[in-house]
Structure formats: structure tokens, C-alpha cells
């Protein structure tokens, strides 16, 4: 047993080192500055390479280069900086390079604010950059989960040759919780990378490319990517259920907002309302499996710290057969558990 009190942002760094990531390229932006600062301090001790890049654009392209060379590598940023990385992420997806990107979200659009938000759901799950690509998107709700999922992210990135995003928010990045550092089941074993660009000694030359001028060849790349995404959709959906056994009023929420929803479920249960919570842990692939058999549910309330970006995925997951409502707040404000219970009652969640 090895427990440590960690800030969320530091937990990302600890997990990366544990997962044998030795390359980090990033650029300062609030509220994730502890991540580059962690690597600047800790990497020299373990032989890692930290570069404070001149821009988010340069940082993600350094990630592209290091990943192409076969390294475990990551970058991090917060919302406006992630927008800048989107060009590089599209190239990384096209070149099928593994890497981990942490987005410790703040409110937008534009420069927005520095308070926590969840308003990059669309950007993370629907593309963000150009072209038909996806990345695995993890939504941790505690510092422990941030640690566990960051480790897992490196493994899945290598396994599927895909960028994996850790989608946290400013609360999660800044708050401190105790983290169990050992005994995690997630495997982080290195995966051979025969495709890496390392110089052609003892083999044929290799090429990493994202340009296909022949339409059939570009279609072939897209077919291969879509097949990979289908596999991920089948194998990697993850979610948590809370009091779902008999729930007829279902909250759906991710990340830090889902923690508030847990309290709301407890409060509603105290009032005799059969409330429950589905918390997607993977935002892409969206955990449709959690919604496959909601026979008892009469109402769904989606709670997010944005203007309702996950609502459409929930509606699709239930084929619009159950009414899906929304309660959220923007700008860095937090939903309150009491207000969530009020909404439940307004929407007809009544004691049984």
C-alpha cells in the first residue's frame, strides 16, 4: 500500500511516470500548470525529457515526432490551448500514432474564464479537428480515477495506435485527494512498435504519412480507422451505475458533475424517490450499453457543466424512447445537489 495526497494535476504526472512515459511537451495555461511544472521537476530524476514549447501547436507536433519515433509521450492543456492542438491531433489520428492528451477544462468559448467547466465535450468526442477521426476520451471523477485512467490511457493508446484524451476539469485538476499508487490492475506493459520511425538499420525503410492523393487510398485509410473505432466501441465502453437497480428517475452526468449527482441521488432517495445515476467513464466511445435495458426509467435528467452537450448522445442511446431533460450551468458555475433534486421533483420524480 502506498497512498499519497495529490492534486489532480500531479496525479496525472505520477501516473505518466508509472506508465513509463518519459516525454512531455506542453505550454502553460491555467488551470493545468501543475502538470508541466511536475514534469519539469520530476523528469530529470528519471531520465525523462520535458520541453516547454513555444506554443500548443509546437507542443502537439513534438508529441507527433516523439510518438512516431516510438516513445510513450503526452501533452496537456486547457480548453483554448486544446483548440490550438486540434490540427496536430487530427494528424496524429491519421498517422495512427499513440499519445495521451490531458484537457483540464475551463469555461469557453473564446478565452472564456479560468473557472472549471465541461464545455469541451463536443470538441473531445465529435472530432474537434478535421476529418473522420475519433479518440478515446476518459472522464475521471476523482483524483484516484484520474491516476488510474491516465495509466490506462497510455496502454490503450499503444494498443490501438490512437490518441487518448483525459477530459478533466479545473476542479479535478486543482483538488487534492489521497491516491493509492500501487495495486492497480491496469496493465501498462510496453507494446512492441515495429512501425516506429527509428532509422532503417536492419530493415526496409518506413514512412509515416497523412497525405493520400489517390481517393481509393484515402478511403482505405478511413475504412481501417473506422474498423478500429468499431472495435473500440465494442470493447472499451466504461461507466459506473449508482442505485440503478430500481431507479425510475435516471441522472446522467460525467466527471466532477457526476459526484454532485451522487449526492443528489442520496438526497432524493432520502425523500423516497427512486433516483439513480449513470456516469459515463468513457465519453467516446459513449457507453450505450448502460442504456440498453432501462425498462424502469420514466425520466432522464442530464446534468452537465455546459449547455447540454451530452444530451444528444443520451437521446440516441435511448432511441428517444425516454424523455431526456437537461440541467446545467456554464461559465464555471457548479450545479448544486439541492437544485438537482428540485429539478427531479419538478419533472415528476415522486416518492413511491
Amino acid at each position: 500500500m502506498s497512498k499519497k495526497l495529490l492534486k489532480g494535476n500531479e496525479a496525472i504526472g505520477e501516473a505518466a511516470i508509472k506508465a513509463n512515459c518519459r516525454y512531455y511537451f506542453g505550454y502553460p495555461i491555467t488551470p493545468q500548470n501543475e502538470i508541466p511544472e511536475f514534469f519539469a521537476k520530476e523528469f530529470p530524476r528519471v531520465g525523462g525529457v520535458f520541453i516547454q514549447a513555444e506554443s500548443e501547436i509546437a507542443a502537439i507536433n513534438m508529441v507527433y515526432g516523439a510518438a512516431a519515433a516510438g516513445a510513450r509521450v503526452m501533452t496537456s492543456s486547457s480548453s483554448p490551448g486544446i483548440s490550438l492542438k486540434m490540427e496536430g491531433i487530427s494528424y496524429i489520428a491519421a498517422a495512427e500514432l499513440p499519445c495521451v492528451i490531458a484537457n483540464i477544462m475551463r469555461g469557453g468559448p473564446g478565452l472564456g474564464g479560468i473557472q472549471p467547466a465541461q464545455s469541451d465535450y463536443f470538441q473531445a468526442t465529435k472530432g474537434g479537428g478535421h476529418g473522420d477521426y475519433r479518440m478515446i476520451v476518459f472522464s475521471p471523477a476523482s483524483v484516484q480515477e484520474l491516476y488510474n485512467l491516465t495509466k490506462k490511457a497510455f496502454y490503450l493508446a499503444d494498443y490501438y495506435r490512437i490518441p487518448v484524451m483525459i477530459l478533466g476539469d479545473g476542479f479535478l485538476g486543482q483538488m487534492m485527494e489521497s491516491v493509492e499508487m500501487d495495486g492497480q490492475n491496469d496493465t501498462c506493459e510496453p507494446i512492441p512498435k515495429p512501425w516506429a520511425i527509428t532509422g532503417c538499420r536492419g530493415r526496409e525503410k518506413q514512412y509515416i504519412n497523412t497525405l493520400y492523393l489517390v481517393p481509393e487510398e484515402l478511403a482505405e485509410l478511413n475504412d481501417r480507422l473506422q474498423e478500429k473505432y468499431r472495435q473500440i466501441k465494442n470493447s472499451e465502453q466504461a461507466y459506473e451505475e449508482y442505485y440503478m437497480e430500481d431507479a425510475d428517475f435516471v441522472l446522467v452526468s460525467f466527471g466532477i458533475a457526476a459526484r454532485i449527482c451522487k449526492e443528489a441521488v442520496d438526497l432524493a432517495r432520502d425523500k423516497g424517490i427512486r433516483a439513480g445515476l449513470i456516469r459515463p467513464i468513457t465519453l467516446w466511445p459513449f457507453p450505450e450499453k448502460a442504456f440498453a435495458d432501462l425498462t424502469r426509467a420514466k425520466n432522464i435528467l442530464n446534468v452537465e457543466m455546459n449547455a447540454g452537450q451530452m444530451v444528444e448522445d443520451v437521446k440516441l442511446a435511448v432511441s428517444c424512447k425516454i424523455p431526456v431533460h437537461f440541467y446545467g450551468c456554464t461559465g464555471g458555475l457548479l450545479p448544486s445537489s439541492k437544485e438537482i433534486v428540485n429539478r427531479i421533483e419538478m419533472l415528476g420524480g415522486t416518492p413511491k
Partner: protein
Amino acid sequence: MSVILKKPLSLTDKKFHYCPGCTHGVIHRLIAEIIDEYDIREQTIGIAPVGCSVFLDWYFNFDIIQAAHGRAPAVATGVKRVLTENVVFTYQGDGDLASIGIAELIHAAARGENITIVFINNACYGMTGGQMAPTTLEKQITTTTPYGRDHKTSGSPFFVPELLTNMHGVGFLSRRAINNPKNIVRTKKSLKTAFKVQMEGLGFSLVEILSICPVNWGMDPQKSMQWLEDNIIPHYPLGDIKMPDFDV
């Protein structure tokens, strides 16, 4: 019969797709000869730009990574920091390097990244059809300066290696031209020095090569060479700008 001249091992057999009179082919060959001469083919990694030379992999017989527009120095940084013993170079045109990628270039130089940049300056965007580049001369006509480049509205051409001279981590800077055999030999020597600087761990090296673009300039290759000599070379002085203390 003994073979006295042959195709470098570092070039593939593929025929160049470049336009008639284009100088990319000559420069590719010079790089391949140098890599053969240093016997570093198996440890060399080239970073391709976006532009006419995007398909470096077709022609070079070693590992290549194709980068986003202008980002080659950042990609090269990532590669070289992982593979410190390999030889890493970028091959970039004037739009890629001096316009969209100028930040990545300047900061790779400022960090003293131990990489080599081959910078092809033909004073226009080639692949997109001859638009103005940062290095387009004043009064030069391009498709986006149809009345001639006017510094009052479109800026002035600037000098890339000269921007980098006072940076501590820069080991070698040179500007050459590809207009005649004498200058081709000098270009090769500068490229050879640039690779040597990297192999000796002496930091960032860059060779700018003044080139032609006959199709987009609207001239035949011979007239293009004449235009290079009469207009571009007088504007961009040739020579080594920052030197290491050895000779190749």
C-alpha cells in the same frame, strides 16, 4: 570498366514528379550523396514538409515522417529528443518554413536543437500555384501579388538565416544557390557542413538554397536561372553566415 559515378544508395529508383527544370531533384541528389558519403543512411530520419516536396519518401531510401504545414522543426525536435543518436533533418520550402512555420523554426533554433534544416527558397508557393511567399521579392509578380509585391500592403522579403545568427545554440548557417555547377558544389559543401555539425553535436544547422520555380514563374528553365541570377541572388547574399571551427 570501373564505375566512377552512380546513383546514391540513399535515392530510390522512382522518377522525380517535379516539373521540368525544377531544382528539387538536384538538391535531393546532393543530400543523398552526403548521406552516402557519411554512411549514415540507416540512422537518418527525414521530415517532409507540406509543399511540392511532401513526398520525400518516394525519393529517399531511408525513414521519413511527413509533418503538418510548417511544423517540421517541432516534429524533428520530438524525434531527435527520443532518438538522440540518429541524424534528423527537415526539408522545407519558403511558405512552409518562413510563413506558417516561422515560430517552430525560430524556437527550434533558440533551443539549439541538434537538427539540420534544408530550406528551399524559390520566392513563391510552388504546390498551390505560385502565390506570394514571405521571400517573394518586391515588385515580383505572383498570383496573389498580380501587380507586383508592394511592401506597403504585402510586406518585404526577409532574410531567414540572418534572423538566427545571434542564437547561442545555432552551429551553422549558410545561404547557397543552385544556378551553376560552381554554386552546386558550394551548396553541397554547406549541406555537408550542416550534417557534420549535427553529427558532432554542435547544435542547430540551416542551409538556405536559392532555387527556381519555372512553371509558377512563367519562364522556361533557362530564363528562370537567369532571373535567379539577376534578381534573387543579388537580393539574398550567398555565403556561410555562421561557421563552426572545422572544415569538411
